[in-house]
Each structure stands twice: as structure tokens, then as C-alpha cells.
């Protein structure tokens, strides 16, 4: 490539200039990211060492007291356990259902678009509306789900009204709601698998299960890893669905659906314990980081083409 006189003046090749511009464009979102993501993260680390109430008050440094308080806080322990349960129930369910539906959707040719739209609809339905409808569906005295159960002679279940059933009922809402997103991921992943492998397999006359086990699943590994990480992070930060499922007693009944994120909100804005809330944020950040690194390490290992 010959250099133009202009480029000589600036001392850069065309490729070099393109790279400079690429950096300029890249730096803008990076700055934004630093300002609205990284800076607040460090700020909350700072707040976690203070008895912080409000920016308008004197907020003394109290060292690790907030973290010590966390070890004694039974409600926080409950929230941590609940959050873990949400992830343990929700992530596998989302993955299995998401992959299953995606494979079924891939298999049909007629009305493909309509089916895909139907499965994606919950994902774009406002959470408040979904949560509201969910409560009515599952209501003990008037809900259609209980009416259906009654047909089979099963007594009315309290679902969201019972500390034992509420968490699973809430998790079901989240799974249903996030399913559309998982399906889209898996559909994209499935489309990316070269047809030739399947053609070769059908020539060899292997079973459907073998095809799934030895072609689809290994070649979907990158998608699965991404799905697991995204779904886990979603459940670990669960907030809006739970807050809307029981607006008068968010996280209830009896804190049985309380998540860590909801508890942070409660501490910060209802009890004015901003410093303590910040300390829990730091804990949640550490947990999510740990989970993500662990998942990337363990699941990535199996990627082999």
C-alpha cells in the first residue's frame, strides 16, 4: 500500500488512522462504563466502612463493623440462602426448558415466527404486569390454578401465600419470564452448528439421543456457558419480580422470598442504613464474581472442537 501525502504528514498509515478512530469510539463507552459502573462499585466499597446514613449527615468510619454485623444478621442469612435456592432451582430449569423449546422451535417450519413470538412475549411483558397476573393465577380462593387442582381432587394450595411454597412459585415466574431470552440464545447457538455433522450422523444411522449427546451438546458449549453465567447472574441479582409479587410485604411472607438485592434496598432506603447496605453490596459483588469465574473455569474446560 502506498502512503498518501496526507498520511505522511500525520505519520500514520490508513490502518493506523482507522485504529486511532476505533480507539476514540471505544473509549467513549469505556469512560461511561468507568463512571456509572466502576466508580460506584468502588464508592460502595468505601461506604461499607462507614456508618453511613445520608450524604447530608456526618458518617463516621467504623472499620469492619458493618461486616461483623452481617455475621449476626439472621434476615441476611435467610436472604442469602433464598438467593442461592433461586439460582439452584432457576438456572437448570431455565437451561433445560430453554434448550428444549429451542430445539422444538428449530424443528418446525410452519408458523415459525408466530411460535417464536409467543415464547418471547413473556420476556418483553412488563414485570409488574406479569407479577400481578401470576398472583391471581395462583390465588388460594379464586385462582384458576387451584380450580384446576380441585378437578383432580387436590386441596387448594396457598402458593405465594405460604412460606413453604412462595419461593418456588416466585422462581417459576422468573423462569417463565426469562425463558424467551434463553430460547433466543439457544436458537442462535443451534443455527451455528454446521449441518454437515448431522448429515454425517444420519448416514451412520445414530439415534436421536446420540446425535444430541455427541453433536448438539458439545457444539453448543459456548452458548451453554454464556447462558449459565447470564442466568446465574440474573438470579443472584433478583429484585423486581420478587418485589412486585408481594407489594405490601416485599420478600414475604415471612421473608420466604426475600433476595439479597431486595434486602439491600430495604436496608438502604427503608432503614437508612446505607453503610450496611453498601457492605452487603460488596458481599454480593464478591459472590457474583466468584460464581462467574468458577463457572467460566469449569464449564469452559469442556469446549473442544
Amino acid at each position, binding site marked *: 500500500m502506498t502512503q498518501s501525502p496526507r498520511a505522511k504528514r500525520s505519520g500514520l498509515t490508513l490502518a493506523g488512522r482507522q485504529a486511532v478512530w476505533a480507539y476514540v469510539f471505544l473509549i467513549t463507552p469505556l469512560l461511561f462504563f468507568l463512571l456509572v459502573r466502576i466508580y460506584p462499585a468502588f464508592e460502595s466499597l468505601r461506604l461499607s466502612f462507614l456508618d453511613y446514613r445520608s450524604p447530608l449527615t456526618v458518617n463516621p468510619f467504623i472499620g469492619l463493623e458493618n461486616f461483623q454485623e452481617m455475621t449476626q444478621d439472621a434476615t441476611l442469612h435467610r436472604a442469602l440462602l433464598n438467593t442461592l435456592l433461586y439460582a439452584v432451582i432457576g438456572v437448570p430449569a431455565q437451561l433445560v426448558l430453554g434448550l428444549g423449546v429451542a430445539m422444538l422451535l428449530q424443528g418446525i417450519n410452519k408458523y415459525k415466527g408466530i411460535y417464536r413470538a409467543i415464547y418471547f412475549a413473556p420476556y418483553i411483558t412488563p414485570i409488574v404486569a406479569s407479577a400481578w397476573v401470576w398472583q391471581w393465577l395462583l390465588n*388460594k380462593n379464586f385462582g384458576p390454578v387451584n380450580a384446576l387442582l380441585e378437578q383432580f381432587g387436590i386441596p387448594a394450595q396457598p402458593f405465594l401465600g405460604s412460606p413453604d411454597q412462595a419461593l418456588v412459585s416466585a422462581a417459576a415466574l422468573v423462569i417463565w419470564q426469562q425463558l424467551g431470552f434463553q430460547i433466543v440464545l439457544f436458537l442462535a447457538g443451534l443455527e451455528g452448528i454446521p449441518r454437515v455433522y448431522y448429515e454425517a450422523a444420519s448416514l451412520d444411522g445414530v439415534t436421536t439421543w446420540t446425535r444430541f449427546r455427541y453433536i448438539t451438546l458439545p457444539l453448543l458449549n459456548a452458548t451453554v456457558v454464556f447462558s449459565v453465567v447470564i442466568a446465574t447472574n440474573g438470579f443472584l441479582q433478583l429484585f423486581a419480580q420478587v418485589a412486585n409479587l408481594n407489594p*405490601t*410485604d416485599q420478600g414475604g411472607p415471612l421473608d420466604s422470598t426475600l433476595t439479597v438485592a431486595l434486602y439491600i434496598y430495604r436496608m438502604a432506603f427503608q432503614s437508612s442504613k446505607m453503610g450496611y447496605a453498601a457492605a452487603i453490596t460488596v458481599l454480593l459483588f464478591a459472590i457474583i464474581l466468584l460464581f462467574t469465574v468458577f463457572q467460566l473455569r469449569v464449564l469452559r474446560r469442556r469446549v473442544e472442537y
Partner: protein
Amino acid sequence: MRKRFIVAIASLTAALAVAAAQSQKTQVVYWQYQFDSKVNLVNDLIAEFNKANPDIEVKQETFPYDSYIAKVKSSLGAGQGPDVANLFYGWLPDWVGSNLLQPLPASFPAKQLEERVGSLVKASKINGQYYAVPTAVRVLAVFYNKDLFKAAGITSVPKTWTEMEADAKKIQKSDNGKVSVAGWAVQPEGQDHHLFREVLSRQWGGKPYTTDFKKIAYNSLAGLEAFKWYTGLIERGAATRGLDLFPGSGNAYRDSFISGRAGMIVDGSFAISAIRNGAKFNWGVFELPVREAGGLRANFGSYWVHGLTPNAKGAKLEASTKWLKFLTSDDVQRRWLKAIGELPANTVLAAAPELRKDPIYGPFIASIPFARATFFVDEAGQRKALSDALNSVWLTKTDPAKALESAASGEQKLLTDFFKR
């Protein structure tokens, strides 16, 4: 090209300067949570006030109830937000502790406030100072569905809790464990935690707190008896949880009443307009029952207040004070009652004969003189401590004595933390 650019800049600057000169008006930002009838009335009031005070411009901004506190806290912390804000009296200790309010200026003397509002106002005195002006007083009473009463053959309203329970049993209908009509829709997170604290615990011979509000006292033997009576209502077939009747609602007990699914609810005077607009049946109000005929009358009184935030300084403070004076004037208070249905925080206005005789307002007005306001240090936290205890008896069959003890210790921790701070 360059010349035209300079001309454009110059004219833009000039335009901005003119605009700035025109907006010499002092701006007062007023915040309250979204409640249609209140927002509409305040819009009308603002129009009048701005017209009468051409040098001031009041601007109203509203937020959904659920995010209101969070908005106020985060905005004021960043030096933004309201100059004048509407808040529940139970939030005062927290807001004052977080420096979200400044003490009322001298033009609101304490003595005058106490005379105007009555003894209830004392629950909002913090460090010997008042930080806000009460605007609407609310007390509790029982709303009842006259049609359901008639259908159950009940001819007069109950005077004692025992009678009320018996009537509720007659009204409640259930089939196969499913309740289609509740006798009494209960909701601890609604007004019922107040009912237990300030009414039942007293009527059963105890008291909710020590007089300085520093120690929980409802976990006495008397308190436990009251607690057992109330929590037993569901098992005895007189009451149903509001959330089991009308899910998805922030006020499930009230909405189940409005939809005709409950014979009675205990609710505040602020519910009058919602029930009036929603209920498609004959309904009425009676005063909270007593334990035995002629026994102790008790009620929970609460109120909303208006306060000045640290943003109101200098000329803004002057303008904000003027707006606050207008908002709490007798004339506006009268209109507040008509438009919203909240009782004026003014003993003289509330004692007006036409109000006392009113079949709906009457039972509420009659309760104001003996109503008491709880001193909340963490309103949401304290509510939750007690409502979780009540719910745990119903949902996990927790022993009432144990449940009450856990409410008391949970709430005591909040009080202790507050007074330590």
C-alpha cells in the same frame, strides 16, 4: 460562514440572558407521592398561589408511593429535589436523623401547632423541636358492608369485639377450604398492626410502649391475650387474610372490601374516598369496638405532615415558608377535607357540627380525642416486626407467645439502635 456562526452564538446568548431575566421568580419545588385527588387539588392550589404571588413559582413533582422515600433520600443527598415535601409523621425521626428536614421557621410557633393540632402532634417533636406541620389527621374505624350485614340477618352494628367476631362469623362463607366471602378481611401490614399496638393491647389491659417509647411493653400477659384473640380470628372462622382475597394489591384488605368480598375491615379515614368511589353496595362506618360494654375506647391516630428541606435557603426559604403557610391555612384545610376526604389536622375545624353528625366522618371525628400516635423510629421496620409475628401464627402455626416475643425483640432492637444513634 464563520461570521454567521458568531451571529448565531451571539443571538443565542442574548436569548438566554432574556430568559434568565424573566425567570427571576423564586422557584419552590413541591414533592408528594402520587395520589390522584391530592395531586389535582395541589395543582389547583398552585395555580392560585402563583397568581397571588407573581414573584414565586411553585412546581409540583410526584412519585409512586413505593419509590417516594428512596427518591427523596437520593435527591436531597445530591442537592436536588424538593424544597417542601409531604411525608408521614412516622418517617420524621428517620428524616430528621438523616438531615432531610430543617426545623420549622419561627413563623410556625410550637405553641400554636400544639393548640391547633392537639396532643397527637407531640409524637413528631424531635429533640424538642418541630420539623413539620401536620396537614391531615387519620384515625381508624370499621367499614362495613350493609348488604352483607342484612343478608346475614344482623340488625345493628357491633359494640364489642366479641359481637364483631360473632357478626363476622355469620357473614363469612367458605367451601372446601376456599373462602368466597370474608367476615372480616385482616391485613397486619395494612392498618391491623396499628390496631394491635394502640387499640387491642390497651383494651386488654396492657400498653404498647413505655411512655418514653424507648421500650416495648406489648409483650405483657395482657398484650399476649389480645394477640391471641386477634390471631385466633382466622381459625375461628371469622376472618380471612386480605392477601388471600385480593392478591396483587397494595391494599388487599380494602380492595377485597370494595369488591364485595369482605363484610368488614378496619381502616383509616383516608380510605373513605377510595371506598366511596369503588364500592357498588351500601356501606357504612362504625367506631372501633371496645372489649366490654362501657370499656376503654382506644384508637390509633396518625397524620401526614409538610416540612422544609435543606434545599430551601435564602429567598427560596422565604418563598417555601409562604407556600407552606398557604398549604396549612384554614381555608385550604377545609378544601383538603372536601377534595380528598382526609380530616383536617385542626381541632377546631374537625369539631365542626356538620362533620360530627356526618354518618361517615362522624365515627372518625368522635375518635380523635382519645387517639394516640405511635412514635416510629423506623416505620417500615417496626411494621414488619409485628406483621411478621402475626403472619407467622397464621402461616407457620408459630406459638403466639413465641411470635409476640420475636416481634418485641425485633422491634426493640430498632428502638435501641435509634436511641443509641
